[in-house]
């Protein structure tokens, strides 16, 4: 299970980074989403991987699942969801306004400098 989770985080992060480096808003937003998925799974794993364990220590329980990372992941999911919505709206506005979906500054042909 450790190998599966670790490689899943690795692949998600690698894919996310590759997409972020594409420098067009659509792939970049997809890449950022992949990165947030990766970090969510990573946060889960930071409380150690357990299967079928109760989240609270109680009588008769020999092992337990750490509840704190689950609370952290919940916060992180909410925040990343909201942020993704914001960035989609802003980049849509920027694309409709300037008819250009590059994330980086494009050389301005008329001035010969970065606009």
């Amino acid at each position, binding site marked *: 299970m450790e190998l599966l989770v670790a490689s899943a985080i690795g692949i998600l992060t690698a894919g996310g980074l590759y997409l972020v480096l594409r420098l067009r808003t659509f792939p970049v937003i997809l890449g950022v989403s992949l990165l947030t998925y990766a*970090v969510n799974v*990573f946060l889960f794993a930071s409380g150690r991987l357990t299967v079928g364990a109760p989240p609270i220590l109680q009588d008769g329980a020999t092992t337990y699942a750490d509840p704190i990372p689950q609370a952290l992941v919940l916060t992180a999911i909410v*925040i990343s969801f909201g942020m993704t919505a914001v*960035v989609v709206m802003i980049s849509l506005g920027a694309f409709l306004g300037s008819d250009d979906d590059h994330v980086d*500054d494009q050389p301005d042909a008329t001035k010969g400098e970065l606009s």
Partner: protein
Amino acid sequence: MTHWLIAPVVLPALLAPFIVLAARYHIGIQRTFSVVGVLALIVIALGLTLQVFDGSILLYQLGDWAAPFGIVLVGDRLSIFMVLLTAVLALFVLLYAIGSGWDNRGVHFHALFQFQLMGIMGAFLTGDLFNLFVFFEVLLIASYGLMIHAGGDARLRAGVQYVLFNLIGSTLFLFALGSIYAETGTLNMADLANRVALIGAEDTVGIRVASVLLILVFAIKAAVVPLHFWLPSSYAEAPAPVAALFAIMTKVGAYAIIRVYTMIFPPDLEITAGLQVDWLMPAALLSVALGMAGVMAAKRLDRLVAFSVIGSMGMVMVAISLFTPEGIAAALYYIVHSTLAAAALFLITDLVRSGRANLDLVPQQPVAGNALTAALFFASAIAVVGLPPLSGFLGKLLVLDAAFGTDQVVWIWAIVLGSSLIGIVGFSRAGSILFWKAQSVEPDAEAPNSPTPAVLSYVAVGGLIALLVAHTVFAGQVHSYTTKMAAQLFSPQPYIATVLETSGKLSTPQEGY
């Protein structure tokens, strides 16, 4: 336990929804509540300053849950000082926004402004790393809205870059927090300080990775070269009052570095030896050099000011990365100066902008109120580049003095002094093109006369410069206080003891809980 410590977070958090819900269509009511709220924040911050002045530590346990299980807010000299600085800066920025009418060029300026204040105040006060992340996000979400306030294509494009850069930074922050939690099992700063000290010398891989990830995140916020790329275009394109408020946001990163890397990973900690202490200094020196070179190379005034922010953040980071009490004291003195001076410069940029077609550094006909604007620009440029008699000079002197006797003294003195000279040349060039050469341009009779900026705008900028003068005149008192702050940071035992040993609900269980 008094509740005053949480007031700087709760007050803007309540004001903002009130402004959105109840005063949506009444700019007058919004302005009144916003200003009154910021004034109240200043009073609260002053009251809290009185309480921590003797070095006592204020603790607020949310829901009465004891640390490390509950989230705590902690007020020591440093955090309350930063809260006071934020509140004072916010007042002048708000006055400018009202005076120049910026707040009425889009919707929800005041609500977002209050949310932004809430995030900044929370980031300064919290005693929990994950809570720090949450407050970072609060201030970022509000700043996304403020950044694209009043719209426009260029601003939206810069906004996209800014939001994406910060989203990736937040992801990195979460990775850092995950690795810290996996290594130590806690995220409370005081508890972390104890547990990190217990980690054995043979098992340091995870915590070293976590420490580096964390400083990367804070370095992004503090715009340390080579992680500064988000800053120039977003600060240049943001509305002027917003850019002026953002002057405190880079300092949130500097504050987090000071807090975490004096308490949790102190410089003499063996397991993280050779990480931040070694490479933060070259990066900081590079920021100083690159910032001032950017000032020299900039073709537009707003870019010039943005690069001067990178340069002055570099100065702050040089002082911090000495990791000595003298260095931190100098850094804190310089943080105040750099925040006020950068804010003043951004506001002056807007005064210039309102009378010109664009901000390109080419002679155009004089702006309305040329003489007064030029005088204000002159004063704040002197402050930023660090010429006597203003506080930039004293701040740089303190930093150089703190660096004296260390191994890197030659590098620090050479780069700081050399880049100051470049900065002086850059600012003189910009000032003379904007204000002097403007006199030789034939006035275009057909061009509409630009309106003189409102008196309130000048009051706001003048107030910031008056604060800089006060910061210079009372430099002795301020520096002795920052020295006390640094001493408190380098003996964190009272802080840790207060946080961990104050009992709450969990430590004294009673019937019914």
